[in-house]
């Protein structure tokens, strides 16, 4: 498989550890396989936009994409520590507040309520928020606001990102990138996801995006 996916690893790193700057191409290694597959399908259908990614997955079948997703999910590599972005202590405090407690006044749920108290995500679909660079995180939050990264059915992150204030994006991105990750960074098993997702973030739930 390693030889077959030479195109992917030329951007995402030899084993999917992410490009050295963490911005050009995000880490794939160790992310939940279901999540990776879903993103690859979004690039195919144009729901997530990035021209080189869209071109590279265009000719591939769903079963092959699944094998590729499983291959990268199974890569067990230590995470890279990103340099702490130069932001004030006040901004970091605001970031921590949002990640751990959310912003009840604007109905922004905490990030941990969905991504897990360890922020390492859950199998098979919920990605972790550890080991990502601050630029990558803020780019993603901006793309949900501009609809260049969407999701089918429940539009969880679209709702979250659109409720946030613009400066809060940089704050959460900075705090997450500089946060000391837990010793075990693997996604938690699905059974560990005890806090139910809010209704508007559950497939097939009737509650409309507020």
């Amino acid at each position, binding site marked *: 498989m390693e030889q077959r996916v030479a*195109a992917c690893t030329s*951007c995402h790193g030899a084993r999917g550890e992410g490009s050295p700057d963490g911005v050009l191409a995000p880490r794939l290694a160790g992310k939940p396989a279901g999540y990776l597959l879903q993103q690859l399908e979004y690039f195919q259908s144009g729901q997530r936009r990035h*021209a080189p990614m*869209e*071109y*590279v997955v265009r*000719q591939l079948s769903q*079963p*092959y994409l699944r094998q590729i997703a499983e291959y990268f999910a199974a890569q067990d590599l230590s995470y890279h520590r990103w340099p702490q972005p130069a932001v004030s202590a006040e901004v970091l405090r605001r970031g921590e507040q949002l990640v751990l407690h959310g912003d009840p006044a604007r109905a922004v749920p905490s990030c941990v309520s969905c991504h897990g108290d360890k922020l390492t995500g859950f199998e098979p679909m919920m990605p972790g928020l550890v080991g990502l660079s601050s630029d990558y995180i803020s780019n993603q939050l901006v793309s949900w606001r501009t609809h260049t990264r969407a999701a089918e059915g429940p539009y969880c992150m679209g709702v979250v990102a659109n409720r946030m204030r613009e400066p809060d994006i940089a704050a959460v991105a900075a705090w997450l990138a500089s946060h000391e990750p837990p010793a075990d960074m693997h996604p938690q098993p699905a059974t560990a996801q005890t806090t139910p997702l809010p209704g508007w973030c559950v497939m097939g739930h009737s509650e409309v995006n507020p």
Partner: protein
Amino acid sequence: MKWLRRGAGLLVVLLLIGAAAWWYLARDRSMPSTPVQRGAEAAALVDPARIEQGRYLATVGDCAACHTARGGQPYAGGRSLATPFGDVPAPNITPDRDTGIGQWSFDDFWAALHLGKGRHGQLLYPVFSYTSFTKVTRDDALSIFAYLKSLPPVNQPAQPTGLEFPYNVRSSLVAWRALYFKPGVYQPDPAQSPQWNRGAYLVQGLGHCNECHAPRDSLGGIEQSQHLTGGQIPQLDWYAPDLSTRTGGGLEGWSAQDVVDLLKTGQSSKGSAFGPMADVVRLSTQHMTDADLQAVATYLQSLPPRAPVASAFQQASSHEQGGKLYAKQCADCHGDNGQGVAGVYPPLDGNTSVTGPTSVNAIRSVLLGGFAPATAANPRPYSMPPFAQQLDDEDVAAVVSYIRQSWSNKAGAVNPAEVSRSRHTPVD
């Protein structure tokens, strides 16, 4: 304001030949079905074997490729097709009563496929490949219609066309059609074998290979004499090569087996499919029966030799630099002598995608990288890294010139400005 000048030119052409065109078109009324035929057609529409045959023929015609939006419902339309004159959206052809072909009779469908006319007699834009589909027999058209009628109806209204005056006036097509469109079902050549005739019918008709593999003039038309001689695909900026396998042909040296391999698996001993051809293989030709693929190959093998293009071969001054880049970046996969690895990496020596009359395919392959199409016969293709970020325009020009001028390859060199232009072409 280039389009304005071109538009004015077209209007003049329109006035000059308008009258002749009306006369010409008045002749080609479609023959509506008689009541007896209509009864037989109604029975055919619900015959499962007929529907299955129609599914196969619609796949050969690659109807879904245009009539499906990305990530959308099959055949429900919505995809916009770019032409030099503006965008034309493909309509919904599921049997929805309000937004699809739910209320169409077979005569309506026949008029669209065979005469390029909509349900209300309006002229259709030739980006819908009816210039080829007109060769399809009435019986095959009936099978396709039966299949489309069996699909789940999807309610998806038509989108407006993005054409500028005068192209947005459908009657302006009268002149164009008089010049470039000759309606008529394929007439078998009795001097040729049934297999050859089947191949010619598929290539010229449903397969609509000519729509990409022939040059277009400034009005977007194809000269009959230029049949399958290769052409730049408008708007997509890919070059579809000449399909003759004889001396001077774009596929010179290809055996019938090579043609079958490429269309069935996406790769062959001579090169692999990429860009729009990878779409064609993945969605259409890989699903063709072996007998039909053999027929296509037999027909292509009979295309005449082409006159050699006289060109003074001049080696690029960057040859040495290109050679170093090749050894470092490419030789691991494509081999020191451009020989490739059978079934894994295409050869570059003698590869028509490398040596083509324009270098756009080779440049864009290097910039974009990517996978050969995943097909039933090659479900896990290998890939090539994109070099757009790693190599600058000069490096790409040097390495592409090198592969165009090494081993047995004797094609023209590439300059960095051509590379720069290709970087900005959208990929979809």
